[in-house]
């Protein structure tokens, strides 16, 4: 058979062909471990909850990067997988309480998807405790701050994500 020539890569570099990005995968130098959380918050409840936590000057670790989505039901498993692939230590999905969804039942869909993604993460070797689903309403600023505190603490115990190369 005709053999195709290829150059062995000295470093891992892969392309995400689905959005045309080359993913750099270098190592990360860790001094003190500070978990990085990607938090998907729904526009109508949880994002407003996060806002309230800020306005009320509640203290919580600055470890989360909040991404606003219109509804927690907008969340696809890919968003979560992608966050982990790019080096997140934890992913938080926050939406309206069941029954309170602005779009009637988006959060119920989110619940099913998050459970399924948890199962997948376990098989992939990423501890499913790194993915969390919480219902936080617009009035629950304290719950948002508490969730962040607890989650950060739990992630500190779990250590850095196994998908990161730590030097």
């Amino acid at each position, binding site marked *: *058979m*005709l*053999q*195709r020539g*290829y150059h*062995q*890569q000295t470093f*891992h*570099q*892969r*392309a*995400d*062909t*689905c*959005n*045309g990005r080359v993913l750099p*995968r270098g190592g990360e130098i860790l001094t003190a471990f500070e978990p990085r959380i990607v938090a998907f918050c729904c526009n109508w409840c949880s994002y407003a909850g996060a806002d309230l936590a800020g306005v009320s000057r509640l203290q919580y670790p600055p470890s989360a990067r909040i991404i606003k989505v219109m509804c927690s039901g907008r969340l*696809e*498993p*890919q*968003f979560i*997988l*992608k966050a*982990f*692939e790019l080096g997140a230590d934890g992913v938080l999905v926050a939406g309206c309480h069941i029954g309170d969804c602005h779009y009637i039942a988006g959060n119920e869909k989110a619940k099913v998807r998050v459970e*399924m993604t948890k*199962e*997948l993460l*376990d*098989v*992939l*070797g*990423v501890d499913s405790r790194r993915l969390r689903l919480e219902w936080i309403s617009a009035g629950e600023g304290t719950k948002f701050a508490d969730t962040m505190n607890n989650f950060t603490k739990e992630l500190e115990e779990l250590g850095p994500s*196994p*998908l990161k*190369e730590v030097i």
Partner: protein
Amino acid sequence: MTKIEEFIEETGAFDCVECGKCTSLCPVANINSDFAPRLIVVKAQEGLESEIKRDKDIWSCITCEICNDMCPYEVDFSGFIQRMRVEAVGMGNVPVCSEAGAVQTMQRITGMGQKQNRLAWLTDDLKVSDKGDVYYFTGCAYQLGILFNDKAPELKEIPANVVRIMNAAGIEPVVSNKEVCCGHDQLWSGDEVGFIDLMEQNVEMIKETGAKKVVFSCPEGFRTFNIDYQGFLGDLDFEILHISEFLMNLIDEGKLEFKETDETVTYHDSCRLGRHAGIYDTPRDLLDAMGVEFVEMASSQEKALCCGVNAFTNCNEASRQLQMMRLLEAKQTGAETMLAFCPKCVIHYNCLLSMEKMPIEREKIDIKVKDFSNFVAEHMK
């Protein structure tokens, strides 16, 4: 000579321009009149970067290889497409991925060096070993079963069922937690570097187990090892077997027995197993040995229709139409079940069947689509 010219030469694709038989046979061209295989070659031959950047047709090809099979000049058109996609991605021409690309990301994650929990399906009653002659490559059927839980949950049972069948014949296969995805979807969606990474990890891992035979239940893994791995690395020092061949050997040795049944089934030749790898007979022999009533569809073997999607990219109207055409044929045979080896075929057909609204009456295409390995395990004594 540029890289594109080089592989046009290697695959012989320049012959397409003059002939065009591929275009008359292509199932996608039949549905979408804007699409023509030879047009892609013409554009590539011109080598204009601006053309290649805009050309979405290279993602519309479903790589079913009907063109390769019928080509009078023996052009390797799907090989041309495979390598054209790598070039296109380099120029920023990317496909639209199903599930926003979750499948590809999941597969890339398997190769990131963490300790996987890949053998989550392994229950206590199944006997496997760490070292031995027969390695069973489980592939990503279990993970796909989780991801497509609403469409084809039975995929989760494939690895366990295959090991169960092997155990019944007195074989304790080697399975490994270090296995990563075969990289099929990476290669066919233009990520050659990601593919090579996965390939090297897999070959290294199999060498460590000392296996002489590697058995695949998934046609895509089988094709990828057989054609793509050996294309990159030269001949591998282990035998690559599809589960249907492996089981036929066991049946010939009288090691497997089956229950009596009066079920009628039809068999869908997945393109990776059929046209890509040339395995048509063993699945049919297997059904015969099982004593299952088997009916052939109108287009079968080399002429089998395709499930309409490859590597989870560009699932569109044409894909739906192709799936519908296949299910229509399957239903017309009067069989209760359509069997397929490829987990992705099972997902794609069940995806169509799970739709609430259909352009055709549901009764006309409503047939059970099941995985072959699971079917064999169910009918074992």
